[in-house]
């Protein structure tokens, strides 16, 4: 069992989970470690233990909180590409429909918006996100400043050919899970 998880990660993330010897330098430098239900060291431990632990990992909030800042990988004495492991764990989580609520809302809005306009619209994004996620008053005090200095536009902007973007996005999905 554990071999399958590990073999899969070795192939997809190009990481051998057994390279990690749990020194904790990654978690020590991780900006999000204290907010995570599993910190980066524990994430690696989950990948070492096998299927059950890996399932715990893909149901965790942690993989959605990673900011992708790569400090863990940078300082890892064994050069373990932890962000790559987290990335693959997220794809596995998506496949099993286990996405953190707020991340799902945000990413869905972002991608829908992207599909329509080809560009990300910070203001709309924030606004819609706040409404859907019920964090209605988040960042409201910045809005007047933004509008005054024309830091955001009131109308959505479009790129030249949004169709290309939506095509690309659709086609990407055809490859399915990131199996190569």
């Amino acid at each position, binding site marked *: 069992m554990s071999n399958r998880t590990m073999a899969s990660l070795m192939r997809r993330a190009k990481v051998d989970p057994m390279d990690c010897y749990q020194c904790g330098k990654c978690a020590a430098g991780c900006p999000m470690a204290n907010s995570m239900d599993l910190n980066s060291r524990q994430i690696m431990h989950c990948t070492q233990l096998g299927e059950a632990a890996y399932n715990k990992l893909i149901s965790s909030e942690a993989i959605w909180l990673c900011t992708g800042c790569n400090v863990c990988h940078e300082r890892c004495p064994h050069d373990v590409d932890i962000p790559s492991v987290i990335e693959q764990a997220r794809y596995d989580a998506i496949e099993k429909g286990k996405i953190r609520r707020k991340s799902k809302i945000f*990413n869905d809005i972002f*991608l829908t918006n*992207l599909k329509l306009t*080809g560009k990300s619209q910070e203001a709309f994004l924030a606004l819609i996100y706040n409404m859907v*996620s019920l964090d209605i008053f988040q960042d409201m005090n910045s809005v007047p400043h933004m509008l005054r200095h024309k830091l955001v536009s009131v109308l959505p902007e479009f790129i030249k050919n949004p169709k290309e973007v939506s095509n690309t*996005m659709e086609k990407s*999905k055809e*490859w399915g899970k990131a199996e190569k």
Partner: protein
Amino acid sequence: MMKYSFFPGCSMGSTAKCYRLSLEYVCRQIGMDLYEIDGWNCCGATSAHVMNEVMGLALPALSLAKAEKNFPHLDIATGCAACYSRLKTAAHHCKNDAGVRYQVEKTIGMPYEAKREVLNFMDIFGTEEAMTAMQEKIRRPLKGLKVACYYGCLNVRPAAITGAPDRENPMTMENIISLSGADCIDWSFKTECCGGAHQNDATTETRPLVDVIIRNAVANGAQCIVTACPLCNMNLEMRQKEYERIFGTPRIPVFAFTELIAIAMGAHWNEIALDAHYTDASKIIAEAIRAGKEADVK
């Protein structure tokens, strides 16, 4: 020859108004030509690569392929750390992994050979040619201004993709800023993450990140922070009022690095929209200009 294809990224047109205006100003001054990629699109950060691996590579590759088609001999420049990271990752994988390139080309429906480099403006302005050109145009040095240069994560990491020689204590931005006459302080949070990727969906969790960064800058004597990324810039600056209330975080203006250069080159405040900062920046800038003039007289 300072000519580049230019990938502006989504923020450049909106929240990063100051960055874009000052960037354009500096380029005009030193004769650097930026050719905006015709029909560029969003790189997909921060959602596309989270949700779908191929999409995360194909979206940036789409813009890169267009750049390759329009300006086959120009390297690609971008001002945003997130865009830089996504573009560079896509280019890196397409260049080194034939399987990925095949997938990507099929997805975007056009050829992409990843022949040209993706660069960020920090590296571009850090070249000897650009540094010399900027040096010649400095007319109004900023004296005594204490600056903390903030690189963020994605401009330097991961090393395999960015190829940045020093990921803990880079000095490129310091070298550029010191042209303006300002003093760059030595501090420890240059490449710490500000949590910009989760500004919206994990606000509570990312707040402390900004707090420690600003605190360390101020503790080391900084009067302002400069960045090379619109997302970092916004994240560090926009919610300072809120942080002040929650953590007692000190308030400090956050500039794009081109802003200080533009000011030192003599740009008018309106030209680069200096008043659009969330935290008042006029006082320290005015003081630095005045000190510069005095030193000049002496």
